[in-house]
């Protein structure tokens, strides 16, 4: 009897172990999506940004706290640095100015980013190749027409090679996002210009930020130049022209008066009805008292 019980217990324990093993083997790993982007900002700072996400129920969700390694070079992978992804699944690495990055024959820099994976998430990697481009933007007003002129070139064999045929976008930051002013396609000389509208509201002094950029360019990545100019219409947002309007914090007076009169009239009638009910109750109580007194 004792032997049977022991054997049964051993069998159950083995089954549980095997089942949990099978269960853990059957668990599917998350297949992440990794994206590597190159940025060069107004101060010529070069930044690599990796975003690590995964898809669940048609939603893109970030993977936070994951270690990402950045590399440079094609065949010879040199570690540039590591970092942990933030709550948006992104991590940035600033490339130091004195960093010597070897370019290939075409003048392209190769970068790679890698996530080594863990028990629940598969490994992933991504690479990009970018060419260093110089973006020069000038802001002029020939014949009082505000004009943004762009020149872009790469350096090769000691010469300036124009970035011809590439699109450059011009934006102005507005309240919630960027407003695109236009798109410049660079000519054979790597130059182009666009007229800037004169009716955009700026701040109190008329300052407005103008952003010119290569956006997700296949060759150059994201390269941006930003400047603040007095090209906007001076607008003072703290003092609207009307204090009471449909769009201000305080409603027009006539609206408040109308609502108050209407509601007072209606609820006044409700009060009359409730008082009627109270009167009926008082009358009934008096009658009950009279009946009781009579008895």
């Amino acid at each position, binding site marked *: 009897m004792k032997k049977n019980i022991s054997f049964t217990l051993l069998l159950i324990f083995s089954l549980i172990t095997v089942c949990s093993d099978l269960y853990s083997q059957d668990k599917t790993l998350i297949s992440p999506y990794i994206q590597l982007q190159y940025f060069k900002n107004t101060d010529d700072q070069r930044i690599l940004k990796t975003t690590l996400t995964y898809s669940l*129920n*048609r*939603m893109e969700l970030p993977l936070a706290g994951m270690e990402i390694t950045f590399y440079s070079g094609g065949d010879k992978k040199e570690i540039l640095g590591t970092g942990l992804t933030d709550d948006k699944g992104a991590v940035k690495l600033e490339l130091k100015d004195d960093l010597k990055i070897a370019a290939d024959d075409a003048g392209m820099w190769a970068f790679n980013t890698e996530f080594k994976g863990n028990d629940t998430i598969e490994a992933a990697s991504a690479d990009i190749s970018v060419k260093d481009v110089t973006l020069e933007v000038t802001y002029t007003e020939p014949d009082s027409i505000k004009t943004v002129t762009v020149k872009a070139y790469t350096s090769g064999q000691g010469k300036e090679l124009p970035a011809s045929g590439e699109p450059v976008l011009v934006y102005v930051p507005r309240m919630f996002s960027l407003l695109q002013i236009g798109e410049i396609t660079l000519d054979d000389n790597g130059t182009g210009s666009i007229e800037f509208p004169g009716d955009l509201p700026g701040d109190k002094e008329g300052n407005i930020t103008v952003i010119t950029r290569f956006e997700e360019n296949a060759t150059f990545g994201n390269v941006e130049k930003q400047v603040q100019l007095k090209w906007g219409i001076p607008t003072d947002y703290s003092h609207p022209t009307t204090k009471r*309007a*449909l*769009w201000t914090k305080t*409603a*027009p007076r006539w*609206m*408040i008066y109308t*609502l108050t009169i*209407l*509601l007072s009239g*209606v*609820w006044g*009638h*409700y009060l*009359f*009805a*409730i008082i*009627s*009910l109270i*009167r*009926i*109750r008082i*009358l*009934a*109580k008096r*009658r*009950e008292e009279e009946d009781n007194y009579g008895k």
Partner: protein
Amino acid sequence: MQADNKLIKDLTPEIEKTSLKWYITFFTFLGFFALGIYGLIQQIDKGHIVTGMRDNVVWGFYIVNFIFFMGLSYSGALISGVLHLFNTGWRKPVIRMAELITIISLIIGPFFIFFCIGRLDRLYFLFIHPRIQSPITWDVIAIMTDLVGCFIYLYLSFIEDFAILRDYKGLKVPAWKKKLYKILSLGFNGTEKELKILANARTIMSVMIIAIAIIVYSVLAWIFGVTLQPGWHSTIFGPYFVIAAVFSGTGLLIILMWIFRKVYHLEEYITKRHFVNVGVLLTVIAAFYGYFTFSDYLTKWYGSIKMDSILIDKLFSDYYSLFIFANYIGIILPCIIIAFPRFRTIPNITVAAVIALLALWVNRYIIVIPTLETPFLPIQDTRPDWINYSPTWVEWSLTLAGVSIFVMLFMLVSKIAPIISISEMQEQDKDEILK
């Protein structure tokens, strides 16, 4: 207060004991309601992704149902208020039902707004950060005011009946019900003074109810009308919605009359005359509704504003069958059935009412959804599968739950109070009522 024994027995079939049919019906609808609750849980758990609403069509079934139920409530108020003011004799068997439609619809309608709101935890912002300029704020104030007013009006109409039930010795109900009647009757005894006070209060409230109901539904219409959306931006929307509301509510009243007459054998009290009278009201309202619909679409079509033209094209192509049903069949068929005396039978009038009610629901659908699919400012970079709206099972189940809870609340009221007013029925000679 005393009343004819037969009258009390006939008009309170479910107060003393509950029939098996009642239980079966109630629990069937409770099942549908439970399905809706399950759908709601899915929505709360997974978010609005389980519905058909997306970036383009941000309003769907929930708003349609909200407008529909609010419309029913308005018509109940109008019918009971106007008929009370004009003191028409034939109204007495149906006025209680109209008042109950008002209250029950007013309770149910706002819940569909709660289902539609993505961040219910911020609902209280409506009260702590109200913007008097916003039609949404007007709607919140108007609905709350209407709800209180309709409750007061309904209660005023119930007082005499509660007094009768309190005093009726032959009523075999549990002690708690007797106590309830005693409390709710406020000691009313039908003295001359009490009757005068009650009559004055009811007259005042019936006037207020009509006014409030018009304002409530106009405010609801203005939520749409003050926007620039094609199909919504119309000066006629206020009265159009009011007329459409009365149309749907009158249809529902006829349907309820038929149901209660059939189920509780009230042929003696709800006669063909009532069906014909309410049916004629339905026809007149249908004519007005048809006129407003024609006027609205004619001006939009003739004006040839680009987005209005796109919307009208969409209504006559993608939504053709729904448009024809709502604005042609839903108007013409009830008119034909009721306008010609040879077609005026109780079943025919009820069928006309069903068609009218369904047509009005579809009318709300084609007011809300096609407009959102053709917005005033075209939305850029949108996913193609978000442009068109398609309701999911969650929305269907919650719609069914709304209808179910409507029926269930009606059934629960029938357990406490008479569906036809006993006091009104015994005020006059029945012959006078039925002539």
